[in-house]
């Protein structure tokens, strides 16, 4: 079983649906049908809390406030009201994210996953490994399946910029401004030329992906 998730939701059909979807996505949901003013020690060992703001008994914000006095567990708020004030208040009280009803189950699962994986992304690593790629950011060295690859300064800068944010798209404009030599002609065309050279050098591994309309992204690509 995956991470344990506490769901606080008073609505029976919605609650059972969310439990079903979380379970289907590999999580281990615990369902509370009403809000409680928690004190330290009462919170089960969970990795994340999904909290409905409109609860009978205890208002969701009060529960969040009480929870935050002793726990840093990520909290995802569910809100039916399209009211900014509620969201701002919830975020101020320490909520990590919120979702406005109605939402698709897929959306919820995706958001839960994103929240659970966030902490590991925040570390700045000296060496990034993406699939068969190994990029030594400090040593300016790149290996594909253990084989060193010779890259120009611009090509390495390009790869390093993508490697610092693996799986995320980096915009072309950002790459032009931060990677290309400002002295020389720095246009998006030049960028594309550098990218195609980089791809050739990394072949047959296809890990520099074009993101439509945005730019490029580093993925753990396998050879074609």
């Amino acid at each position, binding site marked *: 079983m995956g991470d344990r998730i506490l769901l606080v939701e008073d609505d029976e059909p919605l609650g059972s649906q969310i439990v079903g979807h979380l379970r289907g996505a590999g999580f281990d949901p615990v369902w509370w049908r009403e809000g409680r003013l928690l004190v330290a020690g009462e919170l089960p060992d969970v990795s994340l809390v999904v909290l409905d703001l409109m609860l009978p008994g205890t208002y969701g914000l009060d529960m969040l406030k009480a929870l935050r006095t002793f726990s840093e567990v990520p909290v995802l708020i569910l809100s039916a009201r*399209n009211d900014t004030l509620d969201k701002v208040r919830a975020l101020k009280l320490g909520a990590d994210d919120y979702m406005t009803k109605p939402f*698709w189950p897929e959306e919820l699962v995706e958001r839960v996953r994103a929240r659970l994986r966030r902490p590991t992304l925040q570390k700045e690593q000296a060496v990034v490994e993406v699939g068969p790629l190994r990029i030594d950011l400090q040593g300016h060295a790149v290996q594909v399946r253990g084989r060193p690859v010779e890259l120009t300064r611009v090509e390495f800068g390009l790869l390093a910029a993508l490697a610092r944010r693996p799986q995320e798209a980096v915009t072309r404009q950002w790459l032009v401004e931060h990677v290309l030599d400002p002295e020389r002609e720095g246009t998006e065309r030049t960028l594309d030329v550098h990218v195609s050279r980089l791809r050739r050098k990394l072949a047959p591994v296809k890990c520099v992906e074009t993101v439509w309309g945005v730019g490029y992204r580093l993925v753990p690509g396998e050879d074609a």
Partner: protein
Amino acid sequence: MKLRLRLALTAVAVTVPTAFALVQVEHSVRRRTTDEVIAESTLAQMQSGGRERCEAAPDTWMVRTRSPRPPWEHDGGGPGEPPSGPGNGGPPRDSPGGKGPFRGRMPPVQLFPFDSQFVSRNAQAPALDDDLREGVRTDGVGVRRYSKEDGAFVQDLLLRMPWEGGPCEYVLARRVEPSNSPEVGLPPLNIWGVPTLILLSAMVVALGPVVQRLRRLTEEVRASSGSHYQQPVTVQGDDEIAELARAFQEAREEIQAQMAHQVAREQTLRDFLANTTHDVMTPLTVLQGHLAAMQQRLRTGESLEPGLVNSAMGEAHYMASLVHNLGAAARLEAGAPQVQHAPVDLNALVSRVLGRHQPIARPRRIALESGVPATTTWVMGDETLLEQAVSNVVLNGIRYGREDGHVAVVLETTRQQTFHLRVIDDGPGIPDDERSRLLERRFRGNAARTRAPQGQGLGLHIVHNVVELHGWTLALAPSDYGGLEVGFTGPLMTPPD
């Protein structure tokens, strides 16, 4: 109480005590003057032979003189007689002398002799009390006393004669006034009654037009309020009543403006409700149709078409977006107090918008992509409204996009502390003339949304208003990929921490 009655009563209430007080003052002044006159005449009488007569027969000496006239009294009928009230119908005087308040009623003065021990040889002499004796000793000249005896007013003056010894060293001058003397109290009615009456009637007459104008104003105000403040009131002249009419006129205009505002709001609300019902009912009907078709196929054992399910999902998704838009529209129409101004993380906002639409884009085989800066992009604004604005543009891209198409959201920041958020698609785009019209048109009210197919108008209306509300700029342009590019530009905020 009516205005006239109140005024009359006030006049009486002021006049009577004033008249009374004046009479009292006058009376007291007169009494003192009388005292002096009596004292002087007594002294003169005693010096011109009175002393000798008194000392010759102290047992019987007693003078009854006609009261000396005070200086303000003249011979009756003579010129300079003080004016008395015209139409005088007062009671007849028993004195033959005149008509003045005190004339002829001056009773005679009796003189009684006393020796240095304040003993009189005259048996008829009244007793002297200690106050008088002490008073005359201390004063040395004379002392006065006013008292009442058998209901009559007695005025005693004990005078020391300018000689020592003898049975007539002191002389008591006594004047007795009958008890019915009207000296104390109100002066006779004919003196003050007539002027007061004249004054009162003058006031009442002068008040007539005022009361009339007030009555007319009251009627006009009643008529105006009866006509929902349509009917104006007349403002005449430049006095306080005109001022009152003017004040009412202003109040009436204010009330009318408020009422017009209220009516307009109610009309907007009614239109809003009617349009909303219409807008929600249409996708709901489509959704019901899809569900019914699915049930039909399940019953007959046919396989479900993915297109049908996707379309049903699309309708539900569209309805959710519509309801969000209606909420946003309501808040935008309510104006500034409903709008929050707080730090908004645009990176997270973009991620939420993509997450919301991904389940709809995927079955349509439309790729949703996004690129945001590595660090959080903070702006000030209303999170819900901003998210709804971006969401509307993205959803439009998905709804009108072709299969295997793309919608991308690109967020970039500049060194000038501004952000640039672009939503790009490779859909059919909007023709040039239409696009410029979309921006030129002021997206006014609810009309905009019913004009465009499937509520697209409301979505753009909200985008436009939200951008305007935040002081950002909105640009619609053809994208490099043949579709539409919608750009939001605005200032960054310094990070909240």
